């Protein structure tokens, strides 16, 4: 080690060379009188440090008391704050007071502990020997011998019938936990292929639950989210049945042909007067509601992963990871003049799945 002029003189032990046989623990001799001091070397400095640390710990104490006082003194919640007071402001005040006190207490303890260890202790450094991680060959051999002997005693090596039948016995038990998971949920069967929409089911606005007439959407560039009437509380149904209605200027909407059951059909009579069209609101990528509609570009943008669909061209994909256009819901006007579905979607809505076809 390097000589340092200010080093404290005194008897110093030479750390021995590692012994040939690794020991688990160093043999400790009778401790001689220590050749160093447990006191820090710069004594005045340490006295100052002690005062600082004590002051910080006292600050932490006060802050801790402040925390308790703030808890007791600051109420939150409608039932306990004064009438007419704002619950959000009450929560803000309580959070600020409790948090400030706790922060000060913790940071004061941290700074105090840091100054304590850095300025109140002597700067002692020791050297510890690493032991070879690998055991001595003799130990390894002994282990292997014991292991082999034990295996031989258990007879498992000599009696393959027992070995194999034991394995056989544990197989179904190992599978049992997996088998028990079967009733976690129903089988999907065909439920992913259909939604609750059917002929004559009215579309109502989400929130207001009002049915709409075509006159409500005469202003070109209108858009509104609709749901099937009666299903407003059924989240599972809504997760597939949400639909956006968009209205266009006459002549701007170019409906595509789609293949339904192997037959190519025009979807012109799926719209209302070739000005109002309905698309599924469930993105064909991974199922977010695709809701951003830009009326100037006729683009429907999904905010999750930026799949973009052209609403004037059958919601075909223009950009982004969505693999298929948004399914179109065939529309009709029912006998009372309200917008309703003419049938269910002709293809599964939402994200792709293996059996989709």
């Amino acid at each position, binding site marked *: 080690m390097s000589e340092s002029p200010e080093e404290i003189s005194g008897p110093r032990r030479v750390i021995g060379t590692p012994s040939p046989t690794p020991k688990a623990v160093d043999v400790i001799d009778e401790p001689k009188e220590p050749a160093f001091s*447990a006191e820090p070397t710069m004594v005045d400095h340490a006295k100052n440090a002690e005062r600082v640390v004590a002051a910080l710990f006292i600050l932490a104490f006060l802050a801790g008391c402040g925390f308790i006082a703030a808890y007791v003194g600051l109420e939150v919640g409608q039932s306990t704050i004064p009438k007419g007071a704002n619950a959000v402001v009450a929560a803000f005040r309580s959070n600020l007071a409790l948090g400030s006190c706790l922060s000060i207490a913790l940071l004061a303890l941290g700074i105090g502990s840091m100054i304590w260890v850095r300025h109140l202790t002597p700067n002692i450094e*020791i050297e510890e020997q690493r032991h070879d991680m690998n055991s001595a060959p003799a130990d390894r051999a002994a282990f292997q011998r014991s292991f082999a002997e034990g295996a031989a005693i258990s007879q498992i090596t000599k009696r393959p019938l027992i070995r194999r039948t034991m394995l056989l016995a544990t197989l179904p038990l190992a599978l049992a936990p997996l088998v028990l998971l079967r009733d976690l949920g129903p089988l999907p069967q065909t439920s992913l292929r259909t939604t609750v929409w059917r002929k004559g089911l009215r579309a109502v606005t989400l929130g207001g639950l009002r049915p709409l007439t075509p006159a409500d959407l005469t202003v070109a560039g209108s858009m509104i989210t609709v749901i099937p009437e009666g299903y407003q509380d059924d989240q*599972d149904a809504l*997760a597939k049945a949400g639909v956006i209605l968009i209205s266009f200027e006459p002549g701007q909407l170019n409906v595509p042909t789609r293949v339904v059951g192997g037959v190519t059909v025009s979807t012109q009579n799926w719209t209302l007067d070739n000005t109002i069209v309905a698309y599924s*609101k469930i993105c064909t990528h*991974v*199922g*977010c509601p695709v809701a951003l509609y830009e009326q100037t570009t006729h683009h429907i943008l999904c905010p999750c992963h930026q799949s973009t669909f052209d609403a004037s061209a059958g919601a075909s994909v223009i950009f*982004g990871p969505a693999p298929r256009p948004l399914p179109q819901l065939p529309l009709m006007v029912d006998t009372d003049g309200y917008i309703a579905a003419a049938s269910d979607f002709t293809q599964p809505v939402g*994200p792709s799945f293996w059996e989709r076809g």
Partner: protein
Amino acid sequence: MSDDAVKIPAPVSGVGGWLDDRFHGAKGVRVLMHKVFPDHWSFMLGEIALWSFVILLLTGTYLALFFVPSMSDVVYNGSYTKLDGITMSQAYQSTLNISFDVRGGLLIRQIHHWAADLFMVAIMAHMLRVFFTGAYRKPREINWLIGIVLFTMGMIEGLFGYSLPDDQLSGAGLRITEGVLQGVPIVGTYASYFLFGGAFPGDSIIPRMYILHVFLIPGLILGLITAHLFIMFHQKHTQMPAFGNTEKNVVGQPFFPYFLLKGQAWFFFIFGALVVLATFAEINPIWLYGPYTPLAISSASQPDFYMGILEGSLRMMPAWEINFLGHTLSLSVLIPAAVPLGIIFTGAGLWPFFEQWATGDKSFHNINDRPRNAPVRTGVGVAAVLFYGVLWAEGANDVLANAFDVPLYTITWISRFAVFILPIGGYYITKRICLGLQRKDAGLLTHGVEIGIIHQLPNGEFVEEERPLTEEERALVDSKHVYKALPTPVEADENGIPAPAARGPLGWARAYANQAFTETVEPTNGHGNGHGPNGHEAIEGGEHAAIGAGDDDSHEEH
């Protein structure tokens, strides 16, 4: 020298004696008290994760006393009057309750969430430190693998945790999870229906995530952390190259009392930092998001940052889908879900073994590497960081587009190319920088350190005086571990047969990797004549394939 230092207080001898009578602990605990923990700031990053986890357990227990993990609907009529009359799940309502009706509830909730973020930040920073210093090498490979598993479990735990309140933002994330799961070939629809108990959203997912989040996964994490720490304890921590540090020792301050006090200080600082964040920086304001409904979504919908790489992968991917024989394989969903994280975790997990294979280095390593002394490793690490970073940034592309007025699609197009170009370019640039730094170190060893006194020679040339390195400086600069070159396929013994390990395409691959790893800059061993350009050129470079295994110190010069 005072006697106070060695006076034994009565409690130690009393209680200590009582315990020792039963557990025989005196010798073992004394060894523990002497355990040396080397001191370097970068060694404390893992502890940030450790203490953050402890804080997560404490705050999480408190939250669990108030949270109701149920998706049953209730009509809200509570303190957050803006939402009075809305139908919401009990999970959401109980979270509003914690935030607005429980004193300290909002603070504890925010500490919990900030601690989760800091936990993942610390894991990543710690992982990078271990990687760039080569601390995963023998005998610490298992600990490295445990760390990767902890990383994965931390991500899943965080995903479940922030999804529990059933708010609009996290619910959208669950929808995406379901959509990805649904797209998995053959088993996807079944897995989705089993996980959610039927169609999405169902009413099972939150209670199921709850038991995983508060019991199963924290238990696994706790077990793995214990194993991680025990292994580190048993093998002793690595140390930085310095004078007096060898492969066979550990130099530093003893555990008792230094590390206890430092650990105490560190715990208070971490806890304090988290409380400061929880007091002054709002996180996860679920009351602004509203309860989850499947037909509403916000712009700037991102998961917590550690899931950002998956989000970015999904945004970056073009629309690729294969339809055949009545089946659909949605690559635009499956590739982002599996490939980027798969590359990173598999690559990270295999890296210690790949490095051993490519360098043939089977020795113990207890001294860390300086990153410059391992150019290939550092280069690959930088490439991985850039790969991860591009995908992560793409996950925030709409926030970036809005904040910096850049068109949305432009950002996506740029990242589609950057995800390939930046890692490759980053590798090469980093490797060259490392070799340049090695050249500088070689110069230091040869010439010494310039001390700022300049002389002008009679012929007009300026030279700067140099002093030789001190022992401390030399220990640091000279700490490079030089890998031996492995035999290549073209080498053969006297009968024309190449070495077994060097045969076949695997042998060629190994030789190529070995060549990259052994590229290094050698010091000139103090020969003063090695100043001219020729002298250095002959020593640098790594095309030493013709030189077999052996002491690389004795090179031919010029």
